[in-house]
């Protein structure tokens, strides 16, 4: 059993087929980068994995639990960062994190400890009583990442998690993900920042038009694309997607 298993996923929006039998899995402790051009189906895949969308066919499992049939058990293992920095405009940073903590049945002391830890990590300690609606995009992103980290996830599902973050926060984010994955947490990251993915992810999958077109370590993907070791992930990506 792998922490993330996706098998034969099909998802249609009207006549458009966003996913056409997508299959892949992520091993424990991996940082898996999901790449693809706009409209390839990355966000749809991630939303299915966190129970926000129901697939028309196929199965998505988190830690062995089907996200549709065993929704609660599956989502108990997940920390999720959505694509857009959406937030409850009129909750303060602290209230929002307490809300998430309460829904995860974390103890009060644990919640406050986690809030202190992550707000300090991302330089948001001063903003704890600020309304989320008053924060900038980057700050909201940091709060959403803090929420995903604080729920003690076994699986992190993150859609463009570093969008809008300052370099200091990006560094802190990467360090924390590395620390967590070293302890067995699995991370699935969708991103367009190919440089970051190349240096940060342990394995990548490239999807195009709803199917997986390449998968492996960055080196493996490069060799399969016959791009040579000198080629960057960006060049490999453009070659694969352009085929």
């Amino acid at each position, binding site marked *: 059993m792998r922490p993330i298993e996706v098998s034969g996923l099909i998802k249609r929006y009207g006549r458009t087929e966003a996913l056409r039998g997508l299959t892949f899995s992520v091993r424990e402790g991996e940082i898996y980068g999901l790449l693809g051009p706009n409209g390839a189906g990355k966000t749809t895949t991630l939303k299915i994995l966190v*129970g926000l969308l*129901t697939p028309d066919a196929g199965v998505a499992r988190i830690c062995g639990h089907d996200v549709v049939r065993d929704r609660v058990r599956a*989502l108990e293992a997940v920390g999720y960062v959505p694509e857009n920095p*959406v937030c409850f*405009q*009129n909750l303060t940073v602290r209230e929002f994190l307490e809300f*998430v903590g309460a*829904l*995860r049945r974390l103890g009060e002391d644990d919640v406050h400890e986690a809030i202190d830890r992550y707000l300090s990590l991302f330089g948001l300690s001063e903003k704890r009583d600020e309304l989320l609606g008053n924060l900038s995009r980057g700050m909201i992103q940091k709060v959403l990442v803090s929420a995903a980290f604080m729920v003690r996830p076994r699986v992190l599902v993150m859609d463009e998690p570093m969008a809008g973050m300052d370099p200091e926060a990006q560094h802190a984010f990467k360090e924390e993900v590395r620390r967590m994955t070293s302890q067995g947490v699995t991370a699935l990251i969708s991103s367009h920042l190919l440089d970051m993915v190349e240096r940060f992810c342990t394995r990548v999958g490239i999807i195009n038009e709803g199917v997986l077109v390449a998968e492996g370590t960055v080196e493996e993907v490069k060799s399969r694309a016959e791009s040579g070791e000198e080629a960057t992930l960006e060049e490999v990506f453009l070659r694969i997607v352009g085929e």
Partner: protein
Amino acid sequence: MDARKSLTVAKYLFKNYVLNPFVKRFKTAVLAFLIVCVAAGILAAVAFSLSPSQPEAEANQTGEEPGLGWSIREALLQAGIDKGDAISALGAMFALSLLLMLTVGTAAIRVMEEAEYELLLAQPMELSTYFLGREIAELAQMSLMSLPYFGFLPIAYELSGGNMTKALLFPVTMFTAVAFLSALSTLVNVVRILAEERERLLRLGAAAYYSVGAAHSLLTWQISPLLSLPFKPLAEALVHCVTITEGVREVLIGWGLSVSILLAIEAVTIRLADLVPPEFVRPISELAREARSKGGRKEISLYSPDPGASLFRFAFSLEVLSPVHLRNLAIALAASGVAGLAMLRVGPRFGLELGAASVAVSLVTPLVVAEMAIFLVGSIMARDLAAMWVLRVYALDLVPLASGLLLKYTVYLSEAFLVLGVFESLIVREPLALLQPLVVLPITVFVVLLLLVSTSYLASKRRIVRRMPTGLYMFEDIALLVVALIVVPAYMLATFLFKEVLLPRLTPQTTALVVAASLGLSWLLHEASKKALAGAIRVFDLAS
């Protein structure tokens, strides 16, 4: 279902939508408002208990003036409306709202903020847990919003013949009615979602049932029980609060029955909730965008060598000249015409006085237009101000934009007057009533300026402009109610002056003179307003 998590959801949704934006932000104002409400309530109760209401005959014997309640009662009876009619009409109105819920709009569970879908539903809980929390939060929110219903206490007291218990039950019953309709709307949406491809059959079934009800009404010249019966307990509870013959017991029976049905609706909704796919929980902003993308637009090129002309086309022509808008206007005018003709033919058979109906239209028109004005604020934020930064960066002169916006909303409000005017001109057989939108045009221009300036101000106070048709938080709603307090009396006065003073004296010459003067004044106001609005947008530094 996890009731504890539901309570957590309810607590934080209530915080997000009510406590933090309204109560916490305006602590002193809210406290003062509550104190004033309580004080006014106590004073009213004391005053009423000292001077009980009395029937007209009794009043005549004692030589006193009959109370307001008796005057209203007399007016209703003169219009041929007794309590039975009121119950049937109210029941039919509720039934009509159910028909609309079943047939209009996209089947979805509407949420205010995207986070309610993207963040909340990604948490480990069943949909039933979320639904229970959401319903509790909505009930709490509605109960707070129902406080102004206590303002009806004096009139309910008068109408009920001085029965304070019944008068106190009136706001409670009003709250129950609002909660009932809200819960019903959620259940209907759940059923529509679960019906999937069979939703069309559901709509057809509903349309068939209501058609039979309407046909039965026409055949019997009475509102059919098919239409009024399903909501009779609720209608009875409301009407019996303001009647004399029925006691507190009758009100409590109707109210208790309504509450029981309400709880049953909630229970069924929560029971079915786990079958609802999460993607049907949809932010209003997303639905608004979807509705807009469905509404095809006429191919209007925004390009012009004159930047001002481009801006004007963007603000005015793109929407006002769109086929969807023109089609909707034609449908509304036709529907109003058909309704007017039907009222002319059928109304008297139902015992309705056309004169009374005309008075009712006169009273309702300003309210409808004012309500529409408030609704338009959402549209202004969603359509016109959402990407204001683009215009602030690229447009050197905002006056053409201001001019287009002023003209667009003036046209919209005038169209509302025209639609209602068609109905009225038919039932009073007075074509000149159609001139009202033109005669009140200067007031409309002023109201639109007021709306646009206040909306720009509200929008400038938000970092992220709300992009939803009704996407306003409570404090903004209340700020706009203040605007409505100016708009409603202004239109009421204008309507009164037009109908009572001007209309009886209109000759072809005076008509031409009045219309010309109104148009001239409106143009002058528009010219002054567009500069004022453009200036206000800059002063408020409205950017996104």
